[in-house]
């Protein structure tokens, strides 16, 4: 088995302009700040990003938005990024808002090979009005249908990993990580602690199977 370890520079060099990227994180937690900084440094352009929020001017994916690198963002909340609404008004960025539960379930559906999701959340709201979700009647109930989400890349932070790529998160670092890691062609994990020998992690405690993880970056 060849090593999955790359430098953060090498890892980000894999990402082309125009890529779609799932970024774990609730605020900055779970988000790989080192990878985001490198995307900024390498000026990757025309990105489509999926993240729960929109970061802040100097925090998380907010930096990429402020730098004009983002073409489209799907998120549930953007209250700490005052520039975003202006960019939306100016037509410089496309914004799709998803209820948070819808957002994560769509990503999981993409990763789990399901044909989309059916949820009562958002019926009769902007989610339906804007056509982000489509009203269907199945099983005698009105629901919103949303297509699954898949992306070219997923970037996330993990507390522990082994050389297989198995990941373990700590506390609320977990959030969207287990779902997102299933839904991208290439999964890049930035690992907080030294990568461990194969067999060091308890099999019952692993939160993302290493077979789903393509690249490990050792966090400094």
């Amino acid at each position, binding site marked *: 088995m060849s090593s999955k370890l790359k430098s953060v520079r090498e890892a980000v060099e894999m990402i082309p302009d125009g890529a779609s990227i799932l970024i774990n994180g*609730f*605020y900055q*937690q779970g988000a790989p700040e080192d990878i985001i900084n490198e995307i900024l440094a390498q000026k990757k352009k025309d990105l489509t990003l999926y993240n*729960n*929020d929109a970061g802040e001017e100097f925090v998380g994916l907010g930096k990429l938005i402020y730098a004009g690198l983002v073409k489209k963002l799907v*998120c*549930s*909340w*953007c*209250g700490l990024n*005052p520039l*975003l*609404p202006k960019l*939306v008004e100016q037509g410089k960025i496309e*914004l799709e*808002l998803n*209820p*948070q*539960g*819808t957002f*994560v*379930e769509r990503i*999981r559906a993409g990763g789990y090979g399901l044909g989309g999701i059916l*949820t*009562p*959340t*958002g*019926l*009769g*709201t*902007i*989610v339906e009005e804007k056509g982000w979700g489509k009203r269907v009647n199945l099983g005698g109930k009105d629901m919103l249908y949303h297509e699954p989400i898949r992306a070219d890349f997923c970037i996330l932070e993990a*507390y522990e990993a082994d050389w297989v790529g198995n990941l373990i*998160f*700590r*506390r*609320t*670092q*977990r*959030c*969207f*990580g*287990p*779902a997102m890691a299933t839904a991208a062609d290439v999964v890049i994990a930035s690992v907080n602690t030294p990568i461990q020998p194969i067999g060091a992690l308890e099999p019952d405690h692993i*939160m993302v199977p290493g077979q789903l993880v393509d690249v490990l970056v050792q966090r400094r």
Partner: protein
Amino acid sequence: MDVRELIARRISREFKDGMLVNLGVGIPTLIPNFLPPGVSVWLESENGIIGFNGIAPKGEEYPFFIDASKAFTTIRPGGCIIDSTLSFGVIRGGHLDCTVLGALQVDEEGNLANWIVPGGRLAGMGGAMDLVTGAKKVIIATEHCSKDGKSKILKKCTFPLTGIKVVDIIVTDMAYIEVTDKGLVLKEVAPGVSVQDVVAKTEASLIIPPNVPEMNLN
């Protein structure tokens, strides 16, 4: 008594020991301070905590542990961490006994608008739409009128909605109102407030039972 404390105190009386609840920002976060002796609830945080324990003491912040308001937090013994899919499974699946949220507007049908003011700054709905759709009981904690004196309890919401027919209870600084199939029922008034006061300050029609007691805040 401070208006916010009054509302939080009244709502705290709705909680039973062991309930799993999600509290929105603002007034709802005050509620745990006023729970009666012997009543403790499990606080759920959308980012995947069951049983979070308020803000971490200075110096004890753990870098991988925040609540949904971005504050470093701690966990109560017996609490657990879940991922976002299960967090919203718990919320949407009816496992949450109660959610308490603020409101911009709420109306006679139990419709709620609480995530955006038309022309106001765009923020997104976050987890609010899932919370009001899925929780067993949706309680609105709000001042009865907006800052310019207008009723927040309307015949029909005019702002973009968070959910349709989702609200069960509205608790304000003036009244405790129940949303029923027949309309809004005035169940209690705040201390020193008359039924007439409430009616005068409410745009929505209210059903007034023969006896409307004063809120019990103890």
